[in-house]
């Protein structure tokens, strides 16, 4: 396969153009072509959640999505979560405050999932948060603090 295709992607409210092979995943497009390395690759096979981004506001695994599939859709990555000017999204602040990470590698995915989890309304109890945050593995074991951060951010949002 040699041919490349021209794509125009709407990422974090900006239009980004790139020429890639059609087999390039959204994850590799972000990381290897667009200098958006905040979205992490933990498994490249849909099992860890580190690559979670939002497509049209819904959480999606970027490693199981082709870049070509998401043309014309609104993509949000961790870099675009907060509104401009260096501030933090409330979920990011809650993660910092509760020390909901250690190495930080699963963290962008956790935060993107958490924002969606709150939006989906799956934060009615700690157990529900645990269940709906279980697609994101954290080997450092920050789960207790992730639950606390999501709970707090959800309460603040409601």
């Amino acid at each position, binding site marked *: 396969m040699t041919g490349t295709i021209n794509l125009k992607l709407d990422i974090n409210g900006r239009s980004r153009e790139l020429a890639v092979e059609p087999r390039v995943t959204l994850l590799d497009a972000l990381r290897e072509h667009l200098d958006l390395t905040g979205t992490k690759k933990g498994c490249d096979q849909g099992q860890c959640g580190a690559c979670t981004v939002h497509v049209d506001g819904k959480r999606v695994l970027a490693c199981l999505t082709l870049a070509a599939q998401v043309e014309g859709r609104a993509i949000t990555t961790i870099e675009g979560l*907060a509104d401009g000017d260096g501030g933090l999204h409330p979920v990011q602040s809650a993660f*910092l405050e509760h020390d909901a990470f*250690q190495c930080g590698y699963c963290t962008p995915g956790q935060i993107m999932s958490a924002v969606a989890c709150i939006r989906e309304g799956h934060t009615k109890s700690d157990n529900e948060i645990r269940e709906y945050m279980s697609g994101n593995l954290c080997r450092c074991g920050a789960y*207790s603090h992730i639950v606390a951060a999501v709970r707090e951010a959800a309460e603040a949002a409601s």
Partner: protein
Amino acid sequence: MTFVTPKSKHGDASDGNLGGRLSRIDGPEKITGRATYAIEHQIEGLVYAVTVQSTIAAGTVKSVDSKAAEASPGVLLVLTPDNITHLKSATTWAGTPGPEGPFLALPKTVRFNGQHVVAVVAETLEQATAAAALIKVSYEETEHVYGLEDPKAGEGVPIDPMTKSWGDAETAFAEAPVRIEQEYKTPREYNVAIEPHGIIAQWEGDKLTLWEPSQWVDGMARSYAEWFGIPFENVRMISPYIGGGFGSKALSLPHGAVAAIAARMLGKPVKLAVTRPQTFTAYGGRPATRQTLALGATKEGKLLSIIQHGVNETSKLGMAVEPLGSVTAIMYAVPNFSSRQNVIPLNTVTPGALRAPGENPSAFGIESAIDELAYEIGMDPLEIRLLNYAEEDPHAKIPWSTRQLREAFAEGAKAFGWSKRTPAPRSMRDGNQLIGWGVAAGTYPVRRTPGEALVRILADGTAEVASSSIDMGQGTYTILAQTAAEVLGIPVDRIRVKLGDSALPRAPVAGGSQLANLMTGAVHKAALAAREELIGLALNHPNSPFLDLQLNTLTIADGTISTPRGERADISIADFMQHIGQEKIETLRDTLPEEKKNTVDRYNNFTTMMAMKSPTEGGYSLHSWCAHFVEVRVDEDFGTVRVSRMVSALDSGRLYNPKLAESQWRGGIIMGIGQALLEEGIIDPRNARVINNNLGDYLVATNADIPDLQVISVGIPDHHASVLGGKAVGELPIVGVAPAIANAVFHATGKRIRDLPITLDKIL
């Protein structure tokens, strides 16, 4: 190079000092996606390498058909056992000479299934991946040994330095009124850092730069220097953030050599990212272990004798020892003791270090066995532990520096409500759920190696700390900023910390839970020297506003220099530095003993583990301690086990930042829950392949597996253990979790599970 400056909000001003609950200062970078992990470094002209791993367990690569791959679009290079550069053998981590002969990153001889045998380099990752799939390797297969259960495994090799004995364990056991004897097993377990291993290698002339996640940039840089026969100074390793290591990112590995070879051959920077399935054989995790334990005791539960024989697997290439007697020999006061260990070479990648190597499976054995003894004589499992409490190190026969284990038992039991436990198995239930309460203790030694640090006070009143030590989530950035802030009297948000670069002052391995103690010690020393120099200038510099006062001391706090009794107006450090026209004050200090400051010892100190002191050197036995209390709920019909509640009390000495230490504790406990209930490398006997080599089949704990976890610090400052009073933190908490859960499962069900993980098939 990465600078991290504190930006986070925190509770009160004291948080900035050592012991405060400051939020991690690298946090803002990590939660916004700005933290750039090693292989995310952006570099012009990057090309991509992908390896092909062997599909047989033993034999030789007969030939590699790479025609289709070479003709595939974008392919630049195919490396095989026939054309791979032969590197020089590198010194081992222990400081001993490496194996004889050249180092072959893609060897012709296959010794395990999943060994890198070919690498393909192409313009893009997709091209390299596609071309790698076209490689055809033909092998000449020989007989293999797949695991400890393989009848061909044999007895292995006795490891004499592991032998420990005192008294007459055999006779005492034979004569003991109460005897139990059982075998305990742990499977192959994997580190599974969420950031897979990878590397970017780039040559400029004979200078090699490596962006690679590393727990030890100096040690790994040395391997590359020796492999390629270039001076150590020519290798620069950069590892600003590490996406988890747990022991797996401390040593240079074949894939790194492949990337560096390819980069040199092509004259281009090469990125090689190990795929998740490949991580299961690109380096080793914890070897499978088994141990028999014989405990002899009085009818009242006093231990008379412990006899242990342990075995762990290793590879056909290297000798990895997982010391199974480490906890056994120090947990309880026992007059007669014997422990020995064999290692069995078989066809696996050489096992490596995984969180608390040795202590972890060792505790699974002894902490299960003592529980069995408690039931045998009808005693409370907590009581039997207190009855056999070791008042001094029973092996080294020297005092503990501090051992807050009794306090851990007491505090943990109180918080857990242990006194409400009914002793008989299957005596507590909630509907169809059997409830079990279990306890187990854990320990991890305090390891010590000298460190080095640079502290720089700048003209703008800020300060920098620099060290090649690393932060993989333990909180190094944060606690070093806190150390410098406290000593310098400069607010923590004006301190920048620079880590993870072999161009910086040196540090030994971030392993064995030693880094926090040794680096806070080194930064403390360097910062004290900087502070002294600053005060010296304020007292004696001809342009100092304090010169005429003829004082012999000044105070520095909150970034301001003041006279003791307000003789002169305060002046900020920035104003003072400008006043005297000083650009910076820079102090580089190490904690090497005088006789080890020469070039050779210094080099070995930071690039091997030769200088690491044993926990008993110096007259005291130095260890961290913990007690875990667990509640499990076992479904009576299905045998599913859930941990529903846990309380752990831990003695890590003084905590430099309790918020971050608690995170490490919880993280270790969570990894322990996964180890107890889920984790197991499954090997296909036919070809010694790890068949569950992915995160959907090799299960680690998810959020839904983890209940409320309470952690309690019972430590006190221990200045025998370290300058600033801390003991081991990171590896301690996992030790004892699996036996505490196994003990709770027994209490719930009456079934004793002696081989991990505790899965429903073993319970039903």
